[in-house]
């Protein structure tokens, strides 16, 4: 047989995708700074606002990345947010429960979703999409069962959590020369801590590496002795927990619970993950990529809000276009890889 020429390629398609993501974020942000410099886009607070508005997205995005790496998906997260916010609001306003207990309830709801969905997907082998689609409708419907009207959270302690500013050593000068220090909220701290923990977990823990193995080739993982069912189950449980936690952060932002809350949020989370380099087919994806994906989403939002005249629907559309682009890009890369190896 002829000798096959071996091509030395250090080019790794997956790091390439991450580079595109980060580059895209920087490009968008800098473009915003240039175009909207008069509207304050260049101030450090603008960037910190990105983190503030998207703390929940970052946390939930991490959870979604975890299950997507195993080759699954979770489209119930938006409904979980709505349910958690509604339940928290109801508990604190109508049932006089302390905010601490409300937070516990949030985490428990997330866990419950994770356990049930994880069981159906992992042990009964039902497609993740159908299970989490049912979860999505279930959650949203349950939100309406708790209350059909919006409930605002007026609980003092909770509000103080929401409004507590943490000031940064840097800031910006107003036109009059007064120094306004930049600030963030505790939600950002929580989100960043979670992000770092998940990054460490995915890279340095046995569980994390097993997620990648299962996503890469489930059959091989099984033959190499990994407990695939249990790992997948735990992935969904963790994803559910993070959904609950992220919902709590969301609630601190919105200070209310209503039926239509976070509609379509699952799309934001999935987009953040895919744009951040997570492959829909599984096996590839990092929390840091998702972080930048979330920042991209936030930047799009900020750009459109700052522009002022475009309707907010454009955010969804722009995100969907980006998502579509990245999905097609992944598909093209996969086809190229297949050809290379045949």
């Amino acid at each position, binding site marked *: *047989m002829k000798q096959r020429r071996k091509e030395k*390629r250090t080019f790794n398609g997956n790091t390439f995708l991450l580079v595109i993501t980060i580059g895209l974020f920087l490009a968008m942000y800098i473009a915003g700074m240039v175009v909207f410099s008069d509207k304050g886009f260049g101030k450090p607070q603008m960037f910190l606002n990105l983190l503030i508005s998207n703390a929940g997205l970052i946390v939930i995005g991490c959870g979604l990345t975890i299950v997507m790496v195993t080759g699954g998906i979770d489209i119930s997260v938006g409904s979980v947010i709505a349910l958690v916010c509604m339940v928290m609001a109801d508990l604190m306003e109508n049932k006089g429960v302390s905010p601490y207990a409300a937070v516990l309830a949030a985490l428990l709801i997330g866990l419950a979703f994770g356990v049930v969905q994880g069981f159906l997907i992992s042990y009964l082998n039902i497609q993740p999409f159908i299970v989490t689609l049912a979860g999505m409708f279930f959650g949203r419907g349950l939100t309406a069962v708790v209350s059909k009207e919006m409930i605002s959270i007026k609980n003092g302690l909770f509000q103080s959590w929401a409004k507590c500013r943490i000031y940064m050593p840097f800031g910006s000068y107003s036109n009059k020369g007064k120094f306004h220090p930049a600030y963030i909220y505790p939600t950002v701290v929580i989100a960043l801590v979670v992000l770092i923990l998940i990054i460490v977990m995915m890279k340095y823990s046995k569980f994390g590496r097993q997620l990648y193995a299962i996503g890469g080739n489930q059959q*091989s993982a099984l033959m190499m002795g*990994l407990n695939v069912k249990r790992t997948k189950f735990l992935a969904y449980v963790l994803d559910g927990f993070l959904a609950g936690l992220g919902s709590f952060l969301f609630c601190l932002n919105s200070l209310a619970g209503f039926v239509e809350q976070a509609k379509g949020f699952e799309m934001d989370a999935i987009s953040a993950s895919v744009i951040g380099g997570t492959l829909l087919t599984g096996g590839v994806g990092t929390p840091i990529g998702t972080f930048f994906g979330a920042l991209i989403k936030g930047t799009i939002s900020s750009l459109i809000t700052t522009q002022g005249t475009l309707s907010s629907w454009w955010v969804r559309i722009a995100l969907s276009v980006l998502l579509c682009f990245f999905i097609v890009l992944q598909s093209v890369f996969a086809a190229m890889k297949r050809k290379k190896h045949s």
Partner: protein
Amino acid sequence: MNQKILLTMKDISKSFPGVLALQHVQFTLRKGEIHALMGENGAGKSTLIKVLTGVYQLESGEIRMDGAARPIVNHSPQEAQANGISTVYQEVNLCPNLTVAENLFLGREPRRFGMIDWKTMNRKSEALLKSLEIPVAPAAMLEECSLAIQQMIAIARAVDMRCKVLILDEPTSSLDDDEVEKLFALMRKLKAEGVGILFVTHFLEQVYAVCDRITVLRNGGFVGEYETKDLPRVMLVAKMLGKDLDDLAEIKSAHSEHRFEEEKVPVISARQLGHRGTIKPFDLDIRKGEVVGLTGLLGSGRSEMVRVLYGADRPDCGKLMVRGRKAKISKPLDAMKLGMGYLPENRQRDGIIAELSVRENIIIALQAKRGMCRLMSRREMDEAADRYIDLLQIKTAGRETPVKSLSGGNQQKVIIGRWLLTHPDYLILDEPTRGIDIGTKTAIQKLVLSLADQGMAVTFISAEVEEMLRTCSRMLVLRDGRKVGELSGDELNQETVMQTIAGGGEDDG
């Protein structure tokens, strides 16, 4: 050469509903030996390995390892691994999205303070790879590595897990010559260290290049264990295919040959047609009324050759002429419109459409040929179905029975009926009688002859040489993905065929 005995399997039997997969099979593996396990499809090789590695439970017999006092029973691959038996499969069960080092240590990563110690893992991997002379960096992505390297990494993983018995299941099917050599070098190295290697392959050259002993299975039974140097190739082939060299009795039913010899233009004429990776460029002419057989061992490229003719695989090179006119076949429908039909080798996967009825399975090819808009009337369909149920004696409760509830032989008849309905000029039958009872086998062979009498050109593929000699007027012999010979007339006898299949005058006569 009295090496220490590492593994003995004695009197192993295993059956499945309706099938006796293994009967009183034995196998002995010595330390530092490379032992080939050979046999055709259905011989029982994979069942034996699955019994050894714990995927199946044996029904009788025992397995002993390394002179241990008591026989071992493996209930799962993990248990087998714990007993020192590791397997590397053809599909390389590794994770393509992880690095080489990760694949080597997945599930048993070195840790520090509870976290995975990447530095140590990479260092250990480097040492392991170096010791086995595998030229790859620990941090490389597995999917970037060639298949040969991937297989070697799978072997390295097994070695690092202290395996005593290493089973290599068809490791060389997708490798080129250089890569095979690299693999052999690794195997010899392991052999020198005392590992016992069970090498399952169908490539004759490779068996003679690297193996010390050969065990042959046939139809679930043990044929014999031989030292490679004492077993000539032709004898090996004979033992695998079940014919004693001395037995040259032939049954060639009298049927009018050469009826269509006046036809100058072949029905099918292929020139240098090939598909990269599966079949080397070949020339082939098939005339009206001819039954051309393709023979060779499993994996020699027979199915690949016909798939290229039929357009199931797009040819990379060469050209094809049908009835003297240039033909461009890029998909099966093109071939069908030119009058070809194809009964695939894997009935379950590529043949039957399980939940559809017998009637629907029979008419589907003709319907596809006619196109979406010209639906066959119900009466037409019923008539066609009844016709072939009758002609081929298909045993079914009715036309509307889902084809999945028929027996294998009857399913095969349905597929034959499907293609006969399209009245092809050229019919390809890939292993039409595999896994079918004797009565149906003979019926199909007779059918092929009568079709040829009526002017159809047929290509018949089978691993059973005797069957082919009974039906074919010409035979192409393939080996290792290329055509190595064409036999006709007087050459069509057991001995010549066996020898052409075995080939290799260099080693043994």
